[in-house]
């Protein structure tokens, strides 16, 4: 038999909070932090389309992310956070960086799926960057292949905290409500 080393932290659940507690306060928090809905831009940086479908699913009546104050927008210039799927292929790397640069501060980057978080099954390919973290600063990672829509919602809720954190700790003049204008 083998024993666990007593000094090493035991295997434990690493989830920050469970979603229901997050969810309860979420809509209010969106209001408080952004004073409008949280706007998301999706960026496919070489995914297999699985992750993208799940993001699309969030808009369908079964999840209806808009009821929580989340919405997908068409331009990075309107977006509070960028949902990046895929491991960032060579052909999309430059476009991905440009998209990120077009975002207003603080510009949260969320890596969606195994490919985006750490390269997934595409380890060692000549044509991918092996994860978003190698190209853009990642704030939140949502593992899964693909993550279920519920897992995406959970990740998006964590993102809001991150936005709040960044707003308080940066000197950026954050232009609240800019896209509503």
């Amino acid at each position, binding site marked *: 038999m083998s024993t666990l080393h007593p000094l090493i932290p035991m295997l434990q659940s690493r989830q920050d909070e469970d979603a229901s507690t997050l969810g309860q306060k979420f809509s209010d928090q969106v209001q408080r932090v952004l004073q409008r809905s949280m706007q998301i831009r*999706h*960026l*496919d940086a*070489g*995914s*297999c*389309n*699985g*992750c*993208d*479908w*799940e*993001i*699309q*699913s969030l*808009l*369908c*009546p*079964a*999840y209806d992310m808009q009821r929580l104050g989340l919405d*997908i927008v*068409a*331009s990075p210039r309107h977006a509070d956070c960028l949902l990046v799927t*895929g*491991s960032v*292929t*060579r*052909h*999309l790397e430059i*476009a991905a960086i440009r*998209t990120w640069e077009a975002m207003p501060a603080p510009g949260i980057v969320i890596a969606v799926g195994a490919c985006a978080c750490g390269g*997934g*099954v*595409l380890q*060692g*390919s*000549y*044509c*991918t960057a092996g994860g978003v973290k190698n190209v853009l600063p990642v704030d939140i990672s949502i593992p899964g*292949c*693909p993550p*279920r*829509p519920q897992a995406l919602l959970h990740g998006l809720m964590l993102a809001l905290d991150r936005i709040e954190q960044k707003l308080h700790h940066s000197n950026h003049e954050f232009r609240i409500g800019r896209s509503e204008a």
Partner: protein
Amino acid sequence: MTDVVTSPAVDLQQLSGGELLPSRVPGETRVVVPLVTLPRACQVIVDGVGARLATMVAQDERAETGSFTLAYTFAIPDRRWMTIECQVPADSPAFPSVTPLVPAAHWYEREARDMFGLEPEGHPDLRRLVMHDDWPAGVFPLRKDFDPSIPVPRVEADPYRFHTLHGDGIVEIPVGPFHAGVIEPGHFRFAAVGEVVLALEPRLFYTHRGIEKLIEGKSLDHGLQIAERICGVCSLSHAVTYCQAAEQILGIEAPPRAAVIRSIGLELERLYNHVGDAGNMCAGVGFMVGVAHGARLKDELQRLNEQFTGNRFLRGLSAIGGVRRDLDVEFAAQMSLELARIAREFGELTAMILGSETTMERMRRTGILPGDLARALGVVGVGARASGIDLDTRRDHPYAAYRDGETARRRDGKTARRPDGQNLPPSPAVGRGAGGEGYSAVGRGAGGEGHSAGGGEGFPVPTREEGDVAARLLVRIDEVAVSFALIQALIAEMPAGPLIAGWTPPTTDAAAFSATESPRGENLHWLRVNAQGTIERYRVRSASFPNWPAVAAAAPGNMVPDFPLINKSFELCYACLDR
């Protein structure tokens, strides 16, 4: 409508004038021809027996034979395959292009040029296809001497030259690679006069991930995980195609129960795709109720997938030799009930779409893909069937549970609801989309529209003649009905037995290919394993590969704002194409 004959009349070898090679693929005739006669041999097959170019595989065999190999595989209408091979010498890597005689070879040859450095002489368009311009010249990723672990620098190069049209009032509209919606990246260059598209040129392969190279040297099991992730929404078709190719190499077959479970999975995949697409096509015309309705049904189907296989995209179901998950009686019964309900609700959705005259009016006569053009481009799947080409891999090259003619017959007897008990000839189409009211897709499903080839016992393959957006929608709706009926029939007669056949890694060099009908059309995987039991070469020709040029061909003459609708009606996948 080509009539499918089952008795092979033509001696393909004689026709091509090549020398016969052995093959592991059932129904395949494999010949080798001298390089100079390659285009001619291909043309004879295409013109002589109406073959469709199914794939082209290039291989770097310089280490073994001192040359590259090119293999053009054709699907013969009488349900056989034909492969024409030739050797390209290593010291002069060029071959006479087949494209001028067989236009469907266009992209395949450009790809071989990018990936292997094989020059197609006489090819009309020698721009880069897969590797974009900042990829250095002279570096060919699929050659054996390319080392993927060394980063390849970006180089300065002339920007890609789009074919542009010049003239008074012609404006060029670039779109992409990132689009406004939640869709995949690709660049489209329109030339338009006013609102009307004169020409459209797509620039794709942005999501090229180098999967064909990546998989080389991996074990068969490892390869499956990668193959399954080529495309999200055709995960299972890709997985099953890969598994079938591997099974042919290993000389094993999935047990009957596994075959049925695979088929159920494949039909579930078709369902969630088609149902979602029917909804998505409404987005192209701004019919939001339809979108929401379709998306909700799609999600319910995906939930079912998740309960069945543990993944909303049916990943992890198929394994080499069989399946990894059983479908127990209890869940099968529950699934059957759920599906019956979803089928009913989908019927309501279709009635709603077809009853909306404004929606249908936008779709009719929009984005027409003429049948002869579709044939020339080798189009597959819904796009082909809506343009009058009667083809479906499930019937033409049966696999899994589709092999069982018995199933089809019993299914027909049990669930098909033919209004008049006869096989209806395909009715003239424009007229019937119009009569929206009281029009239930389920009711007319399995037998009505699908005129079965192969003498009545075959598989119902719905086809339409007009080739417009509406036709593609109607073909999908018909296929959904067939799938619902098929799943119910398969659930009803699940054979007992093992789920998976045992195997050991191969010890000889062997190659095989297999095809399945994904929701988007025929997927064809060509796989070669070496004596160490690892993958030597893998070639994926997904349904989107031959169909993308068709999208570009269907756009001219339409309004620019109709393009998203046309694109959605083909519902092609970028990830499948780009790999």
